[in-house]
């Protein structure tokens, strides 16, 4: 009886979570224009979507931004995690850790607004005539900033677990500190680095709030496009667009989860553990 109840409970939870998403996916294949009545299966709205030049441009922009900001965040974040690990003073370490977590704790709307104010001030100080000139740069900096703590959070446990022994062994055998990092440390913390990068990519991909504040008029991303479409009439081509975003994010999530599942499934290495 108890088992039965728990199953029903689980079904309800999953229903609440996923039925709205499934509805969007279902209606993106609707043959008619209604958002309430399913009139038959068709790819019409996908075709419609990709006939509109706005969607293509937004897709391209989103991908460019997501790839570049996640790569940048991964490089900076990994370097930052290594730097935090190497800090000797516990006090400074804790302080730096808390500061890097601020963009994550902060409500997006606050981050977005402060970013907007910052770039507006920058435009004034530097005497840039048109905000659109630095629009992409502003977006890149904003997205990298809010992705950074997630990368650090994903990389740091691996570095802590690895400890100093392997790096010391590499130095001992003749590596310069830089070589030791790339030849020995990086390959061994790579799972954390990759999952940090995937996380950063998905976060950048579906960010709306910060992009809404910072985004220039000449650089529209998919979430911004979807939002602007809802302001006019709601048409199923928007559902199609949402479906594409959902599928993309889901695929990445599954890949990254499968990687970490594989990692935990393999038995712990004897020799590699830190003291």
């Amino acid at each position, binding site marked *: 009886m108890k088992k039965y109840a728990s199953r029903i409970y689980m079904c309800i939870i999953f229903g609440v979570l996923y039925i709205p998403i499934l509805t969007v996916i279902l209606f993106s294949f609707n043959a008619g224009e209604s958002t309430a009545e399913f009139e038959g299966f068709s790819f019409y709205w996908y075709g419609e979507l990709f006939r509109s030049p706005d969607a293509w441009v937004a897709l391209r922009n989103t991908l460019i931004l997501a790839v570049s900001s996640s790569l940048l965040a991964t490089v900076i974040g990994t370097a930052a995690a290594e730097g935090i690990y190497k800090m000797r003073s516990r006090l400074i370490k804790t302080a730096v850790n808390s500061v890097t977590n601020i963009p994550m704790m902060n409500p997006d709307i606050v981050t977005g607004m402060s970013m907007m104010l910052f770039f507006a001030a920058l435009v004034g100080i530097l005497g840039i005539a048109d905000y659109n000139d630095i629009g992409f740069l502003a977006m890149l900096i904003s997205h990298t900033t809010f992705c950074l703590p997630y990368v650090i959070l994903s990389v740091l446990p691996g570095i802590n677990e690895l400890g100093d*022994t392997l790096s*010391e062994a590499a*130095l*001992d*055998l003749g590596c310069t500190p830089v070589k030791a990092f790339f030849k020995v440390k990086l*390959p061994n913390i790579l799972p954390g680095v990759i999952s940090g990068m995937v996380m950063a990519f998905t976060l950048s991909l579906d960010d709306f709030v910060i992009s809404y504040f910072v985004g220039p008029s000449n650089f529209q991303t998919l979430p911004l496009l979807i939002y602007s479409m809802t302001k006019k009439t709601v048409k199923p081509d928007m559902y199609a667009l949402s479906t594409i975003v959902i599928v993309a994010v889901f695929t990445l999530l599954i890949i990254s989860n499968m990687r970490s599942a594989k990692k935990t499934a393999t038995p712990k*290495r004897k*020799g*590699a553990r830190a*003291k």
Partner: protein
Amino acid sequence: MAKLVEIKGTSKSYDGAKVIELKNISKSYDGERVLDSVSLYIRDGEFVTLLGPSGCGKTTTLRIIGGFEMADEGELYFGDTEISDVPAHKRQVNTVFQKYALFPHLNVYENIAFPLRLKKVPADTKRGTRKLTEDEIRDRVTEMLAMVALSGFENKSVSTLSGGQQQRVAIARALISHPKVLLLDEPLGALDLKLRKDMQNELKAIQQAIGITFVYVTHDQEEALSMSDTVVVMADGEIQQIGTPTDIYNEPKNAFVADFIGESNIIDGIMLEDKQVKFAGHVFECLDGGFDKNEPVDVVVRPEDVDVVPPDKGMLRGQVTGVTFKGVHYEIIVDIKGFKWMIQSTDYVEPDENIGLYIEPDAIHVMKKSKYSGKFGDYSSFSDEIDQLSNADTAEEF
């Protein structure tokens, strides 16, 4: 309190040049002094063991030689060159780490080849240096694998190897670039007893075959005595004694060394005059001299050097309070005027029996009083378990 210590005549003579020299090395962590003015030199081809309990500074000393820690004070020489500030990757010493530190992302072959791939050798042409070719690397790795008896393991992942095999890979990797000195940080600590004995022999054989200097860190006194040419006993960040294993065992310098190496009865005594020492209420003949008249001293008598005799023939008399069978001998605890002695004898005695003890002059070793005097009591609370606990090294040690 600088101590420039001379290595006494070792069993084999090492007239080889000094290869490593530490001069007044000190090191503190968070205000706590872990090394206090340590001076020591190591000769070419020597097998030197740094021996001491957890936290005595032996691993820190090794890490300073390896370049992983920098000394706060003092100088470190490699041959005639000062290397105090030279980073680890530029030193011609290699290390076998406590937990092997093999690279899990590389297979056995690549682990051993790792140092070779970084190496630059003089080129035949005038272009300066070149990297080793794949053929040269393969030859040397194959040779190394044969030496550590791991031929055929080239493509195995290091995580599938047993502890002993990982150990061999670590040794091969550390030796392949022909370092002048090999540092070993408790390399056998993670192995079981049987394997540890085998690896002790093997390490000694490798050291003798290639003739390079080994600096070995351990807390296991038996390991130190059986493998080393020279043993350096450390405690509280200071060197207590340097000597051959025989010297260290037979002529410990102070109560700490006597207690740490082997079993010993350490009794307060008074040196009446040269070759006459009084302890436990009896005047004994001994072989030691050079003390002041009536100087208080510590006297060491090893349990195996005491003979059990009938009470009327003994120099000392006491009551047996415990007998334990140890296989080769009985371990007998005897109460003599409130001090519990340990005696190892092949003869069985009954508990509560009154026995006499007879001690030959050469079984008595007299030491000057030190800060360790009186710290090591008798065997009244003796048990194997406590002894092992106090000797066991913890992983927290630096």
